[in-house]
Every structure is written in structure tokens, then in C-alpha cells.
């Protein structure tokens, strides 16, 4: 029995050690929204018929990505961080009108799926991701009736 417990704890230590050493580098593969350096996307969030438009600015380095969503007039909606492996999104400085735990939870999950998607199609929890001919990436969240559209803004004009 004592030997069994010792083996178990050794095994746990090895597993924990290996997972802690797992590098947080980007997953190989082509993402629908490639991120490098500084990029700007025009963003539209359609929430049950009410539409919010704006600009999403993302800056990426080895440690991950930082982003901000502001409306065209410059009014700030939220900031976020995305881990290098694109599996974790953390929301920061969410505007007071949107700063509710249930809104944050949905936004966090949807942003993670948007930036983490590698192919169009049906995702878990009733979400679908599509790419239109002009390169616009659209995430449809059927459960909460939310649509997110992201289109890359070129340096000169949209």
C-alpha cells in the first residue's frame, strides 16, 4: 500500500512537472485571424438586433497578444489579452455598461473561439464560424443571438 501511494505521488509529480514545462508558444497551423505585430480590424457586434461597430487593434509579440476594441469615435469598449497558444482570453478595462459577469463570460469565450479558429465550420456550444469572400471572419453565437464580424483594415483605406 505504502509503495502504491509513493508510486502515485511520484507519477503525479512527473505529470505536473511535464505540464508545467509545456511551452506557451503558438500552436502550429493557419489561423483564420493571423496575428503578427500590429493589426487593425473593423469589428461589428450584432447583439439581438442592436449593432455595435468599431475597431479592434491587436499587438502581438512572443508573450501573446494584447487587444483593444474602441468605437469609431474613439470611445473605449474593452481591452483583452490572448495567450500565445490562443487558448486563454482575459478581459480588462471593460466599459461599465458591459461590465457584467455573464457578458464578460460570453465575450471571453467568443473572442477565444474567434482568434483560435483554424478552419470555418460548426464549433462547440452552437457557434459557427465562417469566412466570406472579402476575408471577413464571422462568428455566429446562436445560443445568445450574437454575431461578430472582423475584417482586416489595410493601412490606407478599409
Amino acid at each position, binding site marked *: 500500500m505504502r509503495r502504491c501511494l509513493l508510486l502515485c505521488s511520484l507519477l503525479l509529480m512527473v505529470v505536473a512537472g511535464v505540464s508545467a514545462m509545456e511551452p506557451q508558444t503558438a500552436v502550429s497551423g493557419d489561423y483564420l485571424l493571423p496575428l503578427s505585430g*500590429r493589426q*487593425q480590424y*473593423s469589428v*461589428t457586434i450584432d447583439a439581438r438586433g442592436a*449593432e455595435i*461597430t468599431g*475597431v479592434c*487593434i491587436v*499587438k502581438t509579440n512572443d508573450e501573446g497578444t*494584447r*487587444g*483593444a476594441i*474602441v468605437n*469609431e*469615435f*474613439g*470611445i*473605449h469598449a474593452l*481591452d483583452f489579452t490572448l495567450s500565445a497558444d490562443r487558448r486563454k482570453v482575459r478581459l*480588462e*478595462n471593460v*466599459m*461599465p*455598461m458591459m461590465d457584467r459577469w455573464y457578458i464578460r463570460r460570453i465575450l471571453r469565450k467568443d473572442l477565444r473561439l474567434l482568434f483560435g479558429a483554424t478552419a470555418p465550420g460548426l464549433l462547440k456550444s452552437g457557434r459557427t464560424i465562417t469566412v466570406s469572400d472579402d476575408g*471577413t471572419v464571422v462568428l455566429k453565437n446562436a445560443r445568445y443571438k450574437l454575431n461578430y*464580424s472582423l*475584417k482586416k*483594415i*489595410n*493601412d*490606407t*483605406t*478599409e
Partner: protein
Amino acid sequence: MKRLIWILCFCLPLLSAGAQGLKRADAAQSKAMIERINKTASGIHSIDCRFTQVKTLRFLDDEMTSEGRMLFMADGGRLRWEYQRPYNYTFVLNGDKAYMRSGQGRQQTVNVSQSRLFQGIAEVMMNSVTGKGLTTSSDFSCQMYTSGDEWQAVLTPKRKEMKKLFKDVTLHFSSTKQMVTKVVMTEQSGDTTVITLKDVKTNGRVDEKMFAAL
């Protein structure tokens, strides 16, 4: 001696900057300044200008710059705010209707009179163009400052909804022309949006169609 010259070189610009520093206007000064701004604004029937908007994003340690064209007609309080670079977005305010069109072609119409928040934003935009109505606003309190050949009106939101959006909005006026040259919107987080007006043409002909529904 060399050291003294270096010190003087560093100190002189600082001293001149200090001389140009902000001075809070007293009640009489404020009244006189606002009267002159209102008088100039009353004589403005139309404005056609270009603008540059610089948004600072402290979280990203970055700035977002956009440019566009602004048209204003005093008759009916009409305003067209059009972003042309790097994205397209048009906002038209015509009476109690606001029309918006994004670069992706999506259109939206809002009845301004039905939204207290929208009324506040519309008021900021209209005030920002001419500076008229600085003391009559029910949404903002106003404090005037002078700084060299510039006047500043610091508008502080009174209502809860606007307080959530802005810490304050500062209108910069040319003291010689009594017209708005720059608008600085400061959010509660400290992020700022600076809109600078340029190539300003007043009282020229402006096509009324520019304020029609998009």
C-alpha cells in the same frame, strides 16, 4: 561656463512653457470669453473642415489615428462626421435623427430624443464644433481657462451615464478667432481622444444632401 550654458538651454524652454501654462479664468473673464465664443458661433452658418483623430490606448501603449471630413449647418443643427482613413464610417445628425453607416455598408438610424445617452453625445459633438451653449448645458458643467493665445473650456459631465464615458471634454479655442481648434476627450481610464480640426472653411456653400439619411 559650458555647464552654465547647458543648464540655461534646458531651463529657458521650461520657463517659456511655464509662462504659457493653464490659468483658471475668474467669473468675469469666463463670462466675457463665453460671450465672445457665443457671438462668433452665432455668425457661423456652416463649417466644412477636415479632422485628425488620435486615440491613445494605454493598455497597448499605442495610438490609433483616423482622418476625415466634418460638415456643419447651423440651420436645423445638422452635422456630418465622416471618417475616411483608415476606415470608413459616417455619422449624420439631422434634427432628432442620427444616421450611421459603417464601412461594411451597414446602416443604422437612431431617434436621438429617445435616448438620454445619445442626446448627451450629440450635445458634445455640436458643442465641439462651435463651442456654442457652453453654459446652458444640462449635461455638463463648464470651467474656462487661458493658456497663451489659446482658451480652453473644460466640460465635466454631470449625469451618471456620461460620467461613465468621459472624465472630461476639453474644447481648445483660438483666442483670436474664438473658434474650436481641438477637442480632447478624456475617459475615466485616462485614455484620451484628441480631435484636431484643420482647413476650416466657414459660411461656404454646403450641399444639404450631405445631411440626408444614409
